[in-house]
């Protein structure tokens, strides 16, 4: 097989509209293992939201490789570089294999009983002293559905605190909220097969080529096949995706909403609106038309810094499309006016009646592979089963299912978002925080602040993870967790495809699956239902899945027709899957009836500018009753514009070879070698002005901190500095990590980012901050410690 680190998307298999995407099976086995010697175990990839079906190769009780599942509806056998190589992290010698407890300031090995007794004891103390609102739980987008659901029931109905969120807040909270605002509930309406059928693709703030490589392979195969779809790309950087575009709009960071309003201005002004559809199936058109009337292309061109003619050209492509797929991701979700902008992407498809039929879809894309499940189980900012926390009947229904008093379930306000939880910890009202499988000491904004909050003596921090991370070093107790391949469970990708992943090997040492850790905790806290029986009734993942299924019956994410047996073999099933639809449902809203009935909807909606929550009476007065809601808002300038002292706009993002804070990908040799070290990216003109050449060491500074890294010169917008957010401190040599005996925090991109979040989705904004740039040392001096390596993908956003 070709070196798929360099050849990221693999060989082209072009196909035309309406044809089946050809199968291409990608496989990787470690050297010295023959295919005949391995046993294949069914699974799916957990290294991006595409969730490609894959099998794990097992030999002698160890994972030795992977292959794509040819029959899987998502990938037709393909795998990306992270999928092919990332699994090796599980075999890494530095896995956490025993619990650690802080003694005399140092983390020391302990037994499970010692560690869990301490966690339970501290929980009981805090609960007795301050009650459930002093307890916080922050988890991830990496667990399985069964882990999440166990955690959700434990926290919501057992501990009884609203303070449960996931790092999906950083990643797809805006997708979740934009879907709720427009369609009444979460759940991406479309199917991956819409790529096969479409004639136009519109993508904004979404570097598909690097974030979802196999999805991009599918798109590339259409772009290189007969009847190539037209492609409109909005991205400040000239990405691989932008290079394939018919129209590329490299807009100024933080101006998405102005551009999207401008595009809708053109759709309406040119009559590219399906009025019959809009009148029959939407509400809010008049207010939307009134707002976007103020965004003619010339004004938008001035705000966004792109030519008016290009805005018109983009609108024409979208406006004359017959089958339109639109997508967005972090360039929208992590930027200024996130939810407001994401809703406009929904609007564009609604104005064009491009939803619910083949080739017509809007994807509020996910980032993490199991993010969808945090949302469905309520292990993040939602209530389980896509229920509405403001609807007492929904809460009562959950209380019946869990056999607890409805008052037990916190529903007086929305579930608390992580930035607010950290604020409560900062002011001292949260005293216990359990962090599960995520690394906030690298991934959250303004890291100096995050470290100082987590390091407080008055806050008891528990971290469960598979490795020591920057965050475990701030913990009081560290619990070793099993990873993917070492436990059984299910997860759901961004087109609602559910996969089963079987346990292939045993976890190392004493590491345990997260669900088992939560069950142990629930037992120790003696959490009971209203009849005195244990609150959580299941012991195995399959029993948990069965309970979850019942909980989703009749809700948008209905799993009631699924089972582990149904998911074995085959190629994934899309929810809703019920007795009436036993093979799942390819597209939501095929009948153009949306989930906006007041008694059924997941959320009553918000004002997009302030996040003011609408209440039941507001929603009933609007009476969408099955129609989609066209939401609108005016553009406002970002909160921290560049200024004299900090003249550059700072934006952070991803690169194709890494995942989050590299706890996994940094331990896969091929991926680590492909992108071994931090860098920052400047435009050629800016670099020349500052006398910086490729490889020079530069310092980037914001009001909150500074970082130092080698420069890369790329053809981005002038005045913009890009930094990948993956790099922290765990793998730095000691001399680079410390100076004068103290830690040097000058590598992680989030040292500089701003503490600010979207008012609706509460997603932190890590794509708009002001920074200064200075040269520290010339290339030779800078690279003395290691070669500055060219990377094939460049950077991603």
């Amino acid at each position, binding site marked *: 097989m070709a070196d798929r680190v360099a050849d990221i998307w693999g060989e082209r298999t072009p196909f035309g509209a309406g044809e089946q995407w050809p199968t291409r099976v990608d496989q990787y086995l470690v050297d010295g293992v023959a295919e005949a010697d391995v046993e294949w175990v069914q699974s799916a990839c957990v290294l991006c939201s595409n969730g490609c079906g894959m099998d794990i190769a097992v030999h002698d009780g160890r994972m030795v490789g992977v292959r794509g599942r040819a029959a899987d509806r998502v990938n037709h056998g393909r795998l990306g570089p992270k999928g092919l190589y990332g699994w090796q992290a599980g075999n890494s010698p530095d896995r956490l294999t025993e619990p650690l407890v802080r003694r005399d300031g140092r983390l020391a090995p302990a037994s499970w009983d010692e560690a869990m007794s301490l966690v339970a004891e501290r929980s009981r103390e805090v609960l007795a002293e301050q*009650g459930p609102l002093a307890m916080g739980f922050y988890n991830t987008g990496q667990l399985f559905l069964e882990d999440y659901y166990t955690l959700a029931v434990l926290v919501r109905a057992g501990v009884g605190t609203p303070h449960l969120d996931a790092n999906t807040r950083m990643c797809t909270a805006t997708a979740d909220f934009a879907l709720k605002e427009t369609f009444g509930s979460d759940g991406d309406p479309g199917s991956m097969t819409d790529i096969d059928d479409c004639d136009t693709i519109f993508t904004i703030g979404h570097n598909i080529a690097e974030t979802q490589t196999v999805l991009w392979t599918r798109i590339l195969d259409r772009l290189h096949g007969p009847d190539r779809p037209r492609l409109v790309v909005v991205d400040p950087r000239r990405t691989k995706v932008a290079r394939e575009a018919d129209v590329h709009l490299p807009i100024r960071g933080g101006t998405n909403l102005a551009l999207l309003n401008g595009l809708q201005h053109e759709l309406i002004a040119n009559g590219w609106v399906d009025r019959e559809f809009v009148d029959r199936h939407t509400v809010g058109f008049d207010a939307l038309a009134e707002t976007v009337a103020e965004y003619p292309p010339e004004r938008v061109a001035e705000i966004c810094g792109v030519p008016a003619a290009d805005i018109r050209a983009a609108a024409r492509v979208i406006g004359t499309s017959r089958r339109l797929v639109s997508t967005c991701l972090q360039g929208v979700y992590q930027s200024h006016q996130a939810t407001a902008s994401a809703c406009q992407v929904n609007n564009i498809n609604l104005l064009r009646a491009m939803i619910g039929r083949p080739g017509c879809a809007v994807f509020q894309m996910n980032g993490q592979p199991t993010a969808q499940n945090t949302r469905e189980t309520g292990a993040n900012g939602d209530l389980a089963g896509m229920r509405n926390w403001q609807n007492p009947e929904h809460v009562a229904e959950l209380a019946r299912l869990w056999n607890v008093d409805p008052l037990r379930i916190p529903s007086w*306000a929305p579930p608390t978002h992580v930035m607010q939880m950290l604020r409560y910890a900062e*002011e*001292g009202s949260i005293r216990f925080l359990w962090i599960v499988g995520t690394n906030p000491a690298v991934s959250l904004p303004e890291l100096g602040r995050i470290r100082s909050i987590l390091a407080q003596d008055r806050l008891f921090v528990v971290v469960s993870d598979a490795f020591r991370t920057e965050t475990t070093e701030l913990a009081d107790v560290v619990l070793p967790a099993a990873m993917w391949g070492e436990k059984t469970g299910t997860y759901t990708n961004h087109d609602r495809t559910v996969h089963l992943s079987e346990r292939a090997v045993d976890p190392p040492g004493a590491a345990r699956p997260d669900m088992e850790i939560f069950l142990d905790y629930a037992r120790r806290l003696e959490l009971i239902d209203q009849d005195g029986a244990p609150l959580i009734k299941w012991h195995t993942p399959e029993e948990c899945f069965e309970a979850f299924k019942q909980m989703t019956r009749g809700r948008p994410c209905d799993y009631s027709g699924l089972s582990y047996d149904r998911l074995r073999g085959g190629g994934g099933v899309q929810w809703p899957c019920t007795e009436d639809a036993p093979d799942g449902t390819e597209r939501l809203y095929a009948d153009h009836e949306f989930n906006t009935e007041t008694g059924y909807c997941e959320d009553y909606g918000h004002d997009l500018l302030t*996040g*003011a929550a609408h209440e039941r009476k507001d929603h009933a007065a609007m009476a969408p009753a099955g129609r989609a809601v066209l939401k609108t808002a005016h553009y*406002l300038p970002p*909160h921290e514009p560049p200024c004299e002292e900090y003249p550059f706009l700072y934006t952070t993002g991803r690169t194709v070879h890494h995942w989050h804070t590299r706890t996994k990908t940094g331990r896969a040799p091929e991926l680590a070698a492909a992108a071994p070290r931090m860098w920052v990216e400047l435009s050629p003109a800016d670099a020349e002005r500052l006398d910086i050449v490729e490889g020079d060491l530069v310092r980037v500074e914001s009001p909150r901190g500074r970082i130092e890294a080698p420069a890369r010169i790329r053809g981005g917008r002038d005045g913009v500095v890009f930094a990948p957010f993956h790099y922290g401190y765990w793998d730095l040599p000691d001399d680079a990590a410390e100076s004068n005996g103290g830690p040097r925090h000058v590598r992680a991109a989030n040292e500089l980012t701003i503490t600010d979040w979207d008012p609706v989705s509460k997603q932190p904004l890590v794509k708009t901050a002001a920074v200064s740039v200075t040269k520290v040392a010339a290339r030779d001096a800078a690279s003395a410690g290691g070669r500055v390596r060219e990377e094939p993908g460049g950077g991603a956003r």
Partner: protein
Amino acid sequence: MNLDKAVKGVLDAEAELAKRLVAVGERHAAEHDVYYLGHTLARQAADHVTRLTPFAERYQVGAAPRGVGEPPGILETVRHKGSQLIGRSEISGVLLLRDLRETYLLAQQAEIAWVILQQAALAVRDSDLLDVVTACHEQTETCAKWLRTRIKETAPQVLAAG
């Protein structure tokens, strides 16, 4: 005709609201959303005053409120610094709840002042004024609604977790 009283009622209420939003944003700068939205909504309230100014002339209102919508002055800077000091203290929540509650009441005062002005504008058939009233009234209602949302989220933590 006493329409000037209705115009002045709105001008005073919105000016007061703008000032308070800035002060509260600065005092609670450690609450990042209160800081940013406080300033955004203060600019909006100041904009309401500007949009009503032609009608202050039309209906011969005396001196209009001054100093609305100016950048934070020395007082705000002091408050901002103070926020950093009390941001880590357990009383910061109690102060926040009190300030949000008082700001909510000011927003409600502004809201009802718009209702009164709207009624008067209808009676004198001033359609220019009605256009302004309709747009601004809705924004002021939303401002109050944001404060209500924020208060509902904050109150349990301040009152039950102490």
